[in-house]
């Protein structure tokens, strides 16, 4: 019980600053970026949009909690859904801090870092391409945007909050703080539910249980994906936890954990459902799960009998 409480509070305290950062960036985008600016940016460049979205992850050191409100803000401002998906999936993996910590966790096995970035980008691209081909419509919950009825912007909210009743830069900064507060409360409660369940499973699951589940090429991947999903570690730290499994699992299973965990986990699933429509999130989860499972299985087969530890 005491262990559960500590883990619950620690994941929350860890995620809170990053969720705050995400909501602040999202609020800045909402208030300062003109409505059609991003739509126009993407309009003539739909071919390279996916590549741009994936590469943008290299520049923005943001993890899987902060990214959700940012992607919502971008889609709200007219960014294509598929680009949003690719950015959402790639950013928590390819950002420089995560890659550096992966390298530090596996200093004598650079292949892990390289493959983590490579598979992460590949799967983000594939999922983006899937949504470009098969998904039309607006994935955001509640039409385009719902704010609390009493948003003090002084405007009736249409597409988004564009300006405030108060003039000037200061007025707009006030709007940013107001919207960031709203968004933090709105998505924060879903984060809490996700963190609660993650802490519960983290407390209950023992390493031995996981080891008992699977040692095969496919079962080990499935076991580590499940583990990565439920424990909801920050992508900055998960490589060190993966390293603790180094002797027990093959490379594909470790990579599945390192790629799947940042893209989807229990706490960010709740965030996603709070922001996007149910069917959209379910499709996203299915696509990503199948893609990671297949890719990691392939790595295990190609890696042959050798264990991940070199």
């Amino acid at each position, binding site marked *: 019980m*005491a262990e559960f409480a500590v883990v619950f509070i*620690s*994941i929350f*305290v860890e995620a809170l600053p990053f969720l705050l950062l995400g909501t602040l960036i999202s609020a800045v985008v909402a208030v300062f970026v003109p409505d059609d600016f991003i739509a126009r940016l993407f309009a003539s460049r739909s071919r390279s949009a996916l590549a741009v979205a994936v590469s943008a992850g290299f520049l923005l050191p943001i993890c899987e909690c902060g990214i959700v409100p940012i992607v919502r803000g971008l889609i709200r401002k007219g960014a294509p859904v598929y680009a949003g998906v690719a950015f959402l999936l790639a950013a928590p993996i390819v950002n420089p801090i995560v890659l550096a910590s992966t390298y530090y*966790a596996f200093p004598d096995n650079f292949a892990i870092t390289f493959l983590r970035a490579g598979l992460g980008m590949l799967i983000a691209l594939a999922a983006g391409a899937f949504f470009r081909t098969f998904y039309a419509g607006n994935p955001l919950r509640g039409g385009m945007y719902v704010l609390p009825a009493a948003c003090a912007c002084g405007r009736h909210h249409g597409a988004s909050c564009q300006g405030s009743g108060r003039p000037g830069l200061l007025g707009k900064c006030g709007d940013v703080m107001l919207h960031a507060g709203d968004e933090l409360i709105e998505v924060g*409660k879903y984060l809490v539910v996700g963190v609660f369940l993650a802490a519960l499973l983290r407390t209950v699951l*023992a390493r031995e249980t996981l080891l008992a589940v699977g040692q095969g090429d496919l079962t080990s991947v499935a076991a580590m994906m499940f583990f990565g999903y439920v424990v909801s570690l920050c992508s900055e730290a998960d490589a060190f936890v993966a390293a*603790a499994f180094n002797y027990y699992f093959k490379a594909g299973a470790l990579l599945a954990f390192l790629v799947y965990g940042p893209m989807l986990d229990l706490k960010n699933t709740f965030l996603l459902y709070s922001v996007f429509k149910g069917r959209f999130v379910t499709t996203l989860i299915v696509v990503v799960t199948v893609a990671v499972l297949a890719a990691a299985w392939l790595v295990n087969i190609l890696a042959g009998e050798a264990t991940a530890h070199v």
Partner: protein
Amino acid sequence: MFNAMAVLRCLALLVLAWWVDGLADSGMVAALVHPRFFPAVSLAAGALFFLALFQCRRFTKPEKLNAWSIAGLLLILSPVLVSAVLPVGYLGAQTIEKRGLTVAPAGEYGGAEAERFSRNDAEGVIEIREENFAAALKEITHDNPARHLGKRVVISGMVHRDKGMRDNQFAVTRLLLICCAADAVPVGLICESEDGCPVAEGAWVRVEGTLEEGVYMQRPLTILKVTTVDAIEPPPQPYVYPPGAYRPE
């Protein structure tokens, strides 16, 4: 017109800010996250305070009191409520048992410390400290086992025993905090003593001995051949935070 909903939102943000600030102030935040996040945690408390402040702009705007929104606020405050019932503390023996011991850590835990430990060929006893706990263990058991055989070392930590150990073996362990308590990894040195482990699981000890070749879980591994075991008080900072250590004030 008085907006009760906005007041509640403002209060919830204020309580959260006060709670986060309290964790940072009391130092209990060290039981939760790695010290490199302390500035982020303090900043978050400040940001929450400002977000609460700006909610005041809505105090006079009309808004209905909504049961769902109030439930949402309670949900967001649930970590505060949980910590009121079960005070935040450091993880211990139970967690080590569950997460499983890592005996040959392969990660990078501060090259400079490992280097310093490795170069330390002084006669006498080399102390494995909080600053180099992970780095030294990595050096001893993983990177350069041969170089350190025969050295006398002293190490402090929590006693842990598991099924893979022989009757005369026990481990001296610490929890490595990389990011937060959810990812804390138990790392330890296997010790071997003729009389087995003299103290109970989870107790804190200071063990002195000689590094020798040994076997753990049917694999060759550098172990500590024990000469003395002393029970000690748990240190104020039971975790180690690689690279380096955290010492408040």
